[in-house]
């Protein structure tokens, strides 16, 4: 049994490394041009944001509308650091510092607000993100509404790949641990979870901290790829964009979030050729998807190889029947 698991694990790592190598090759051969790379970056950042929000909203059941606020902390921290000391080392330092600041804020905000439930919590987190935005709007170091121009670009495919897979692996492992089970039980029934002896406040705050940390990373990656950040980029609409990915992919499905991040990027880039009605079609598509799959693309299930195998099994049985 253990050997089998090892082989499966090795296969996974090989597949991951292969994905990295292939894209890296295409980048160096210039087959992936700047435009495609920008889309790919957006997808990776959205995956980090969506998967981490999914931990808070989809798995732990805490409705948060402040994810863009955490993202902006990471973005500004990293931007300010790399503008002063432009070097790859300070990029990584800034990225982790930004993530830690975001996590710290998640802890400070989470402790009092996570006592609130449902829509009350949503409004509290929304308020938090607005406060962060207004603080950045009025500080000198952030250059107010004009925003910051970052002249150097450190985010490349290597870092995107490392942090995206890192986030997904971190959150998947957390969900599958006994801590993750405790989080899920809070979503299912908070009173019952408490009666089982689960410290519900602790786990809600932990989910919030991990989610905020990852959002901080996403913000840092954003700041050092797209050259320019301003407070308005991290407003209410950005939080909604992230929530849309999570709901579309399925609350409580990590592979759903990843799939939805790809799908939405694909749709919006295909719609580039119809600029006038782009947002209308986008919105209509969202409505249609929600009408036909209200639980999201994946529901709360995960995409796995065994799912493909069981599909294969059905085909085999059918073929067997014909014979």
């Amino acid at each position, binding site marked *: 049994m253990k050997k089998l698991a090892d082989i499966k694990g090795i296969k996974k790592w090989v597949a991951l490394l292969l994905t990295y190598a292939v894209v890296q090759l295409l980048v160096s051969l210039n087959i992936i041009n700047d435009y495609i790379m920008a889309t790919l970056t957006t997808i990776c950042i959205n995956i980090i944001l969506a998967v981490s929000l999914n931990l808070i909203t989809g798995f732990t059941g805490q409705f948060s509308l402040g994810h863009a606020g955490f993202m902006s902390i990471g973005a500004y921290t990293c931007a300010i650091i790399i503008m002063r000391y432009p070097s790859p080392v300070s990029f990584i330092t800034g990225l982790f510092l930004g993530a830690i600041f975001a996590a710290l804020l998640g802890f400070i905000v989470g402790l009092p607000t996570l006592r609130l439930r449902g829509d009350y919590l949503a409004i509290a987190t929304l308020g938090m993100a607005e406060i962060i935005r207004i603080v950045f709007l009025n500080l000198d170091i952030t250059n107010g509404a004009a925003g910051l121009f970052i002249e150097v670009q450190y985010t490349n495919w290597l870092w995107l790949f490392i942090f995206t897979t890192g986030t997904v692996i971190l959150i998947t492992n957390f969900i599958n641990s006994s801590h993750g*089970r405790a989080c*899920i039980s809070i979503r*299912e029934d908070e009173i019952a979870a408490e*009666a*089982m002896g689960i410290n519900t406040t602790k786990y809600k705050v932990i989910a919030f901290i991990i989610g905020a940390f990852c959002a901080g990373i996403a913000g840092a990656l954003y700041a050092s790829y797209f050259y320019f950040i301003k407070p308005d980029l991290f407003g209410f609409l950005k939080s909604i964009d992230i929530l849309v990915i999570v709901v579309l992919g399925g609350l409580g499905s990590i592979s759903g979030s990843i799939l939805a991040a790809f799908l939405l990027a694909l749709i919006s880039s295909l719609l580039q050729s119809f600029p006038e009605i782009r947002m209308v079609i986008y919105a209509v598509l969202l409505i249609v998807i929600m009408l036909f799959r209200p639980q999201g693309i994946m529901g709360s299930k995960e995409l796995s190889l065994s799912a493909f195998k069981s599909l294969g099994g059905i085909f085999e049985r059918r073929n067997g029947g014909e014979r």
Partner: protein
Amino acid sequence: MLEISNLNVHFGVIHALKGVSLKVEEGEIVTLIGANGAGKTTTLRTISGLKKPTSGTILFNGNDITSTLPQDRVRMGISLAPEGRRIFSSLTVLENLELGAYLRRDKAEIKKDIDMVYERFPILKARRKQAAGTLSGGEQQMLAIGRALMSRPKLLCLDEPSMGLAPLLVQEIFDIIQDINQKGTTILLVEQNANMALQIANRAYVMETGTITLSGPGAELMRSEEIKKAYLGG
């Protein structure tokens, strides 16, 4: 084993429990009966720590547990099967039982207890990989009781286990409660089905709008005219 004295609980301005005192001795089945809104569920929630009292004390095996956290009370051996079952519906039956043993770290013993629950409720074994939300009402109640047993409680608090069940199933659940008690677990049972509850209880308390109005041995209360009129339909 459990001794509550002069317990007062408020929900905002509403005075839900007004000086409730009651006692549960080791090995007993004690039932708390009364109409809707009398404060029975609040009493159980305060005992298991989900609700903080404004005044009064709760003693468990001689220790004052009035201000301890719910998880500490579970560790000490108080377990609650909450009203309305409250199972984790999108998790499987097995995962529900594992969460019942959340505070325990002795894997081998947990496995034994899961088998013990399966033995008591064979239907749960048959459905162990099924999402708990797809079980019938009776099966869900069995799961809620099984889950509460997974923390190896000394005192098992059951909040309206007969709610919404067909009469035949109610009988089965009450048989199970008696059986759990005979195997050594003390039981505090909150019920609206006064008739059934009084039949199996050693002692009973009657609650009305936040106070205890009557108490005594179950059989005695069953014969009382007042009880007959108010709760037993005649």
